[in-house]
């Protein structure tokens, strides 16, 4: 793991891995969405709206996964001073926020025909909205601390503290009464029939590959900006 702390080694790997992850992710996610949209039959209770599952659920998992990645990278930055971990945390924030927003909007579009309402202030929906605001706060804080040259330790602490919301989102449908259904997939178990489950799993793999590709692309962008700025500063100092 520490081997990739070297930016040059990371860039050698990321140069071919970024397009590979993005292209394979777009192909796999596209195939899973087509499968869910065209092949999967309507559900007995939810009818055609069950197809929203293939966008909504991977987005929800990646929204939470994005913050988990920020928390892990922040911990690595604070404990081991890993040079790339702060950059990785910053790079995961935008895709995490985008998937959280997609999850909230598609959830609302699913709620209207199934629950009869666009929104309810229950535990699951509210904690997911809080996650989106945490992402906005993290992005603003990371940008501001980088501009001021204060490093990203403040953002790293924020990333760690914000992780408290992840188990709250996960357990919200168990702890509080909610219109949202309880978990259908837990560790090694699923109450979803295979007809509906397989395209969901394939789609999750596809969207995860896209997430990984976007994080690598954004890490490369941040790293290139840091290197260009350092070079200009050296030139100005001479």
């Amino acid at each position, binding site marked *: 793991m520490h081997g990739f702390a070297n930016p040059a080694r990371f860039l050698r790997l990321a140069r071919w891995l970024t397009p590979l992850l993005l292209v394979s992710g777009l192909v796999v996610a596209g195939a899973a969405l087509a499968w869910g949209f065209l092949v999967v039959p309507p559900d007995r209770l939810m009818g055609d709206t069950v197809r*929203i599952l293939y*966008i909504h659920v991977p987005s929800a998992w990646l929204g939470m996964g994005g913050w988990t990645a920020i928390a892990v990278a922040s911990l690595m930055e604070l404990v081991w001073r890993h040079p790339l971990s702060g950059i990785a945390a910053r790079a995961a924030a935008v*895709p995490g926020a*985008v998937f959280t927003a997609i999850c909230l909007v*598609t959830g609302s579009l*699913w709620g209207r025909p199934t629950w009869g309402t666009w929104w309810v202030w229950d535990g699951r929906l509210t904690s997911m909205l809080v996650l989106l605001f945490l992402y906005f706060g993290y992005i603003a804080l990371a940008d501001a601390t980088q501009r001021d040259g204060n490093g990203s330790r403040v953002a790293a602490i924020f990333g760690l503290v914000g992780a408290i919301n992840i188990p709250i989102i996960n357990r919200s449908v168990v702890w509080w009464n909610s219109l949202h259904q309880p978990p259908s997939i837990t560790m090694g178990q699923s109450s979803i029939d295979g007809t509906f489950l397989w395209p969901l799993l394939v789609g999750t793999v596809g969207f995860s590959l*896209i997430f990984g590709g976007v994080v690598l692309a954004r890490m490369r962008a941040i790293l290139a900006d840091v290197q260009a700025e350092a*070079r200009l500063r050296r030139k100005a100092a001479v």
Partner: protein
Amino acid sequence: MREALDQMSFVYAAYAVGVLGTLAMVAWSWIAMRAAERRRDKSRGK
């Protein structure tokens, strides 16, 4: 009174949000990365 909602219009809207949002994010990140790497190469005098 029960509303008669066309379920497929909600499905279309959800797919549009998901697909367009994902594609926009991929395109934005890729373009930003290429632009940043061009700026770095330019600062090196490449």
